[in-house]
């Protein structure tokens, strides 16, 4: 007799536990609530990434097309993957002294692991994070970027 009671209590316990689970899914079925999915290509206009978002490394230029990179090579040295290459040049400045300027600051996005060491170690704060994240391209060579804009110059600090 006891075993029969056990049989039926097992049955009803089992059924009620199943019902508890069905209540949860049923609740969401009838009140879908907040769907967190982002409608990505449609919301491109309004989509705003976080201010610290690590999309890619960029070199900010001001309105006079000037940047802060002195070409010291510390970022190149600190990069663990060799994704930064700096080609420097020497030009004579107004006083006739040879001065080092960057020719090309090459950034291989395809090799970057977003460790932030180049930005962190840059002594003149010439690098920053860009919020661009749509990096899909058909050709891998397009991921090699030159960070300094053509014709840009080193920003001279007002002395």
């Amino acid at each position: 007799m006891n075993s029969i009671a056990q049989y039926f209590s097992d049955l009803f316990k089992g059924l009620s536990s199943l019902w508890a689970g069905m209540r949860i899914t049923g609740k969401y079925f009838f009140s879908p609530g907040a769907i967190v999915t982002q409608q990505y290509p449609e919301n491109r206009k309004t989509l705003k990434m976080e201010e610290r978002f690590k999309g890619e490394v960029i070199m900010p230029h001001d309105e006079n097309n000037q940047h802060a990179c002195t070409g010291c090579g510390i970022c190149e040295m600190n990069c663990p993957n060799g994704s930064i290459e700096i080609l420097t040049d020497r030009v004579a400045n107004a006083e006739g002294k040879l001065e080092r300027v960057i020719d090309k600051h090459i950034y291989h996005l395809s090799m970057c692991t977003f460790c932030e060491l180049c930005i962190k170690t840059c002594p003149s704060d010439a690098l920053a994070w860009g919020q661009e994240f749509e990096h899909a391209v058909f050709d891998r060579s397009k991921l090699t970027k030159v960070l300094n804009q053509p014709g840009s110059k080193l920003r001279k600090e007002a002395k």
Partner: protein
Amino acid sequence: MSEEIIKDVIVGEHEDYIINMGPQHPSTHGVLRLEVCLKGETVKYLVPHVGYIHRGIEKMCEANTYQQIIHLTDRMDYLSAHMNNEAVCMIVEDAMQVEVPERVKYIRTILDELNRIASHQLWWCAFGMDLGALTSFFYGLRDREHILDIFEESFGSRLLHSFVCPGGLMHDVHPNFQKRTKEFVKYFKTKLPEYDQLLTGNIIFQNRAIGIGHMSRETAIGFGVTGPSGRGSNFSCDVRKIAPYGAYDKVQFNEILEPGCDVFARYKVRMAEMWESLSIIEQLIDNIPEGDYTAKMKPIIKLPAGEYFRRVETARGELAVYVVSDGNKSPYRMKFRTPNFSNLFVMNEIASGYKIADLIAISGSLDLVIPDIDR
């Protein structure tokens, strides 16, 4: 593994029904290959084959500076990236005898626990999916999204955030961090009971989990199974209690131990750990002291010659880092004792004799992350 089985495998004189689970299989959670020998539906033995994503992180460490190593450790156990980073940072701080500011310790501990919750959430949804309850997968991911949003706001990345650096943090946390974390704790406290109703109490789930994959305490210690998997076998192995680091000595929390030794015990440990982590976060989040976010460090870190060892509790168990330094700016030898490495190889011991469906439950309950095994 006994002698005759090995002979069996090598010689190939078996009449057994061998199936290869993986490297591409929906439930191996990565490129793990399990060579499973079946008798009917019952597992006779299994041989794990690893190395499909061996990247030689230990070799790479020998060529990198300590700052550069940190971002490599992200890629080992990517679900507890923050704890991996912290282990390397702490070993550097130990060796350099740098005193880390209190604020850093508090923030690191909060991030540890947030990361632990995120990892357990992902485990919960993947475990539900292994057992065929697909809905749990989406509920878990939905709630994990809140943590990842907090991470993204502060670190700029969601999964592999090399946010810790030797001596402190890369930046101070975002001004919204406290507010959003508190919001999350409040939100998640309403969602955790739903998890219990959906899976924990479910009779089908309990039948699938109770009494399956028996791992005795001796087996757990012998195979070095740590973390929630080990604590499900009543093996007290929580490094946060044994050797407190960060702010763990300032908070009240329990080490969750379950004597069940089966899949359900390991499940319960993880569910209870999520509550425990929430309580740790609640204790710390309002008391973050003001101060610097990093201690003063030299730009080039050279560890004094010697050997250093440090243990950290990740979401999956005990991560131990062993460094041999010869005084240079990169380590002479760096060894990571990753929790999943030991946790994986207990599979043959605890899955033999159970059904093939139980094998999935067992491998799910061990919560394996394959890159952590291969390194």
